[in-house]
């Protein structure tokens, strides 16, 4: 007689687990990256959905003291103008070389897509916004981590200045090398998501993404795209082809 109510609650629990699992797995394909039928991508999407569902949405990554700053490796593309690097893009590499020769005075970042005032910003324009400096931990998928100070403008400010539309759901960023990243609106509008032009009290070094890089503090390091030159706001998830993670076999969401 004791086991009857237990059985009922257990059955309810299992039914509940199964149905919430179904809800998580179903989902509209516009709101998450394509899986290409790959079971690994399905697991990535499950993690994305569950973390978005269960974790507090506006929690802040821990910020450290300037005494905590550590040495930091520069990996991936460390110079987009170097044709010997893996993600070298010939057209953009030449442009990058010219801009660098002019101390990035002629560099501008374009903003387009689901915004009412598409346009571009120079470094001076970006530096006119109120700056934010955050000393945070960079966590690399390889397993190492480092603490550095990043100074820049919150992406939210720039998106609002460009007149972001209410229908916007994702922000795609393109770099001078053959790499692109996209983040959802929750991360894009997060107070610690910044477009950084400074690092550890000086200008952002070339190896770390000069003149402008993204910082997304609640995901792994590779989401913090270096060498940003174009930002496209979209209403639905857009597969950026061979530039993006799902295509290259990497997880798109890496809050884990």
């Amino acid at each position, binding site marked *: 007689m004791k086991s009857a109510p237990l059985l009922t609650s257990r059955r309810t629990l299992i039914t509940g687990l199964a149905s919430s699992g179904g809800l998580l797995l179903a989902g509209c394909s516009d709101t998450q990256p394509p899986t290409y039928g790959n079971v690994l991508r399905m697991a990535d999407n499950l993690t994305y959905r569950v973390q978005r569902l269960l974790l507090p949405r506006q929690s802040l990554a821990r910020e450290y003291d300037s005494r905590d700053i550590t040495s930091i490796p520069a990996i991936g593309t460390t110079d987009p103008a170097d044709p010997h690097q893996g993600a070298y893009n010939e057209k953009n590499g030449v442009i990058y070389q010219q801009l660098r020769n002019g101390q990035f005075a002629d560099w501008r970042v374009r903003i387009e897509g689901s915004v009412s005032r598409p346009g571009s910003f120079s470094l001076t324009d970006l530096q006119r916004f109120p700056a934010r400096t955050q000393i945070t931990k960079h966590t690399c998928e390889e397993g190492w981590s480092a603490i550095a100070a990043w100074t820049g403008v919150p992406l939210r400010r720039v998106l609002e200045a460009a007149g972001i539309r209410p229908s916007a759901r994702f922000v795609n960023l393109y770099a001078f090398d053959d790499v692109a990243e996209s983040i959802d609106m929750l991360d894009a509008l997060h107070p610690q998501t910044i477009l950084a032009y400074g690092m550890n009290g000086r200008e952002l070094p070339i*190896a770390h993404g000069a003149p402008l890089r993204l910082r997304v503090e609640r995901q792994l390091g590779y989401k913090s795209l270096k060498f940003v030159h174009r930002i496209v706001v979209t209403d639905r998830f857009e597969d950026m082809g061979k530039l993006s993670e799902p295509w290259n076999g990497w997880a798109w969401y890496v809050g884990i």
Partner: protein
Amino acid sequence: MSSKKGSPASTDAGAGHTCWVRVTHWIVAASVVTLAVSGFTILMAHPRLYWGAVGNDLTPALIELPISRNYRHGGWEVSTASFPAGGTAVSAERTYDILNENSWARSLHFLAAWFLVVTGVIYLLVGTFSGHLRRDLLPRRGELTRRQLRDDIAAHLGPRRQPTVGGPPYGLLQKCTYCGVVFLGLPLMALTGWAMSPAMSAAYPFLPEMFGGTQSARTIHFCVFVALILFVLVHLVMVGLSGFKRQMRAMTSGRPT
């Protein structure tokens, strides 16, 4: 789950493994093997372990493991001597093409982790409510004494007797080992794993802090992995010594013989 049969002391003695124990056992076993293989692959990308919040190729390591060509590769070119805000901190560019299979290894690791965590939670819930944990796994009142432990160790070292059944009741050392895996090893793996996640540690800062930092959590994750691998090896040896075919039959079809 047949908790109707008599008193807890005699329940299921010699009845083999219940169906849900067999199912969860094999899902957990498959998850652990997948996690071990993918986890080792992830470790090969950066075979250095640290203590504290952060650590990388430019900071001292606690342990360096010679398990891939990334071991002490030294392919770094210091590009920035120091930063105004960072004291003696330097930046260096990698000049070496490292081994990195993390694209599939990480996603496979987390896929298997989902299976382990969901199955583990179901196991703990059903195990609690069915009485399996209390009846079969936890040592009974008065059972965990120094003398009984000594006797059981002596029995393990002495000439082997074939047990009559597969499944509970378990010996004292067996109970202690299973409890260690179920209540300590696997939960520690989940907690240290979550402590490494940037989203989880932003939401719950106590996760990395309870282990002394994210890199400490990674080091503990590795140490518990080694302990669990040792458990699996000893477990397999014991299964072999006590009658491999009979034990496999008890854990698959469930027929106790």
